[in-house]
């Protein structure tokens, strides 16, 4: 049973307000090491030098979208085992199918509650304490 504070998380979303909501939710769950990026390209650059345990990424972003980020992570051996949760809109079924092809660990539909976020994370990393 991992402690949330022992896990590092990166949230990737081009909207500051959404990153802020996720950051607050993660802190409420107990995460303390929370990093943020505004697009996939910036996230990938940071992950190469500073890997994290879990990436929570939006799909729809400029430069490198969520699928592109997921593919890059899975293709780069030092990062390929990073847990990855995709944020989607309710109509993005095709996006989720593509993400599954590229090895996404889970997904969550916006708008979501903190409880739902926690549930999705626990389904990937195990029950948190």
């Amino acid at each position, binding site marked *: 049973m991992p402690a949330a504070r022992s896990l590092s998380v990166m949230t990737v979303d081009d*909207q*500051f*307000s*959404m990153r*802020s*909501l996720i950051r*607050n939710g993660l802190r409420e769950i107990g995460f303390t090491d929370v990093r943020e990026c505004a697009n996939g390209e910036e996230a990938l650059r940071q992950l190469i030098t500073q890997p994290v345990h879990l990436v929570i990424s939006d799909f*729809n972003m400029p430069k490198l979208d969520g699928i592109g980020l997921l593919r890059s992570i899975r293709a780069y051996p030092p990062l390929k085992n990073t847990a990855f949760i995709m944020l989607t*809109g*309710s109509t993005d*079924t095709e996006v*989720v*199918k593509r993400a*599954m092809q590229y090895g*996404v*660990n*889970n*997904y*969550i*539909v*916006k*708008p*979501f*509650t*903190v*409880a*739902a976020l926690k549930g*999705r994370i626990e*389904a*990937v990393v195990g029950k948190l304490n």
Partner: protein
Amino acid sequence: MATGFDYRPDPATGERRVHVVQGEYHVTDDPSIVLTTILGSCVAACMRDPVAGVGGMNHFLLPDGGTSSSGPEALRYGVHSMELLVNGLLKRGARRDRLETRLFGGARMVQGLTDIGEKNGSFAVEFLRREGLAYLGGSLGGTHGRRVQFWPVAGRMRQMMVGREEERIFEKERRSAVVPQAPQVATGELELF
């Protein structure tokens, strides 16, 4: 997206009206479309890219104005609504740095209670500021409902204040409306876990 799409053009003007109800949004690059809505304490953002010739409107209400019993989590409805509108515009060729927004609604419809309208309006203004999106004003606050019409391609807007009798009718409808619930589990046919 939006409900209430009337495909029949107005015989006099050739315009087609799309009524945007609470919780919905609509984006278009069709110059014949007029987006309409009726607002009490809800807020509608009328957003457009004048260069790309595309625009849209959303219509949202934060449960309890994003405060008190619902907690800050209620903000997610507003953030999601604004995100859907922005992303809808970007998909139609708009550029974020060219987006212009006017905000309407946020009236105090019931005296003596928490000013939910003010909270909705403040949230929308703050959202635009945080996201670096241009805010060109509009009409927020007051104590009367509004009818808003928005020609998204031309950028024209019209606001009409609503009479007391009409206000009573749609406030009653608003109170009986179901507050949107976030899905607890994923919707659609895909289930990973």
